[in-house]
């Protein structure tokens, strides 16, 4: 049953993704994106990655998209005026590019699905996760032992980014 729900959620996510691209109203786009994030969270949860699922919903749906929607509300964007012009070369370029990306991603997923040598060892298998006592333990073990340098570098990067954002905003105010 879980698998069926994953498929339903995936289809829903794809549908909402189309909405994000094609809806005229920026508010509709933003909320379709929120729905998409929640769907992704559901998929993560159903395939056993509860921690990632919770974080997906908390960070993307609960925090980032709130700021998006907030900005849209503040700027009072209405229905987008410009029509999609089918004659323009950019439209065809975009179509071509997205088709290429879709093909590459699809073939990658297909190769992974048809690969019978699914990882039976390593830290991310169900058995290992169950053995160490849950997603959080497995993830934090990995994060704070093997990958701690990367972890610290990323945190430094985020700190620098937030300071930079602050300085940019402050200069504008002054």
């Amino acid at each position, binding site marked *: 049953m879980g698998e069926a729900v994953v498929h339903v959620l995936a289809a829903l996510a794809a549908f909402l993704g189309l909405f994000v691209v094609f809806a005229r109203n920026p508010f509709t786009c933003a909320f379709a994106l929120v729905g998409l994030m929640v769907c992704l969270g559901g998929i993560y949860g159903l395939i056993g990655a509860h921690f990632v699922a919770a974080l997906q919903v908390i960070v993307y749906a609960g925090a980032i998209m709130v700021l998006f*929607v907030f900005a849209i509300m503040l700027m009072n964007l209405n229905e987008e005026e410009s029509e999609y012009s089918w004659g323009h070369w950019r439209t065809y370029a975009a179509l071509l590019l997205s088709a290429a990306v879709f093909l590459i991603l699809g073939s990658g997923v297909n190769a992974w699905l048809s690969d019978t040598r699914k990882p039976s060892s390593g830290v991310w298998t169900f058995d290992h996760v169950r053995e160490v006592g849950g997603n959080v333990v497995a993830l934090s073990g990995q994060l704070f032992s093997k990958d701690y340098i990367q972890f610290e570098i990323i945190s430094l990067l985020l700190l620098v980014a937030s300071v930079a954002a602050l300085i940019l905003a402050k200069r504008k105010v002054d």
Partner: protein
Amino acid sequence: MDLFEWIALILKLVFVLAAVLNTVPIVVWFERRGSAWMQGRVGPNRVGPFGLMQPIADVIKFIFKEDFVPEQASKFFYHAAPVLAAVAPLAAFAAIPFGSYLIIGDRQVPLQIAQLDVGILAALAFAGLEVYPVMLSGWASNNKYSTFGALRGSSQMVSYEIGLGLALVSMLMIYGTLDLNAMVKYQEQTLWGFLPSWGVFLNPVAFVIFLVAIFAETNRLPFDLPEGDAELVGGYHTEYGSTKFLMFFFAEYIAMIMASSLLITLFFGGYAPLPGMKAGVDVLASALGFGSVGTQNLWAVVQVLSMIFKVGCVMFFFVWVRWTFPRFRFDQLMDLGWKILFPLALINLLVVAIFIAMLGG
């Protein structure tokens, strides 16, 4: 999952839904009569004994009101908002344990809908979605008051989520787990022989921050600026009437019950009764001639009752605070959130981390 587990799951779902949805009218009743008592009035006492039927009268009134949709509203979002408002906090109940386990036959039935090892995060994730109905309703009803209410509501919720999250992190460091059930197990121990080792005694600063933050998250007075009756008519639900408003009304109380169960699980030992009560229940069970299975089941029932009792106490506190304190001004609210609670939570986090490193390291 076999049939037994399915039936157990459905029964648990029904129990939690029924418990939560039936608590709402009781709290509404208490909100009205309790507010009256706190102001030296009598309150609604005509419908039924002690006015207990008043919520039913209210619901009937709401149902028979005109069900209108504003001309310029964007219809889909306008109708989706109240639904989302009620669903988001209800979903969060899935992660909250309301008892240890029952023994039926020879199987243990844990009294929690979803045994997640990241229970607290799941609850927070769903609670975090409570921002959206506010924004949706405010934007979709195409009304300046609604929009202002929605802007206030969303910025307030986002701001206080930071303090809430940091207070939570300090508690998570103490408990060393994200599993709500394990947190309750931790709090069943005693502290220095007489105090239950509840989070409120271990980390009172985090408790105060968390308490203030959940008041802001649930839009309760003194932080009910999104509704702001005095200057915003009704805030984000200005344009809602009839059952759609009723939905928002219910959702507010469901969110309060959710927040108080989370508060209890983190700071007041969750479903765990007072430390001495286990012995008392054992004596009672042996007096009634229960075996070990019966004792455990009796104990689980006591735990569920203690959870309900604690939620009731916190709900009393919600009502009590509402009818005591005046509303904040919006800049004061933001000052409190960002300039006081946020740094305080950070300092508290640091102190807790140092303590844990010194004691546990």
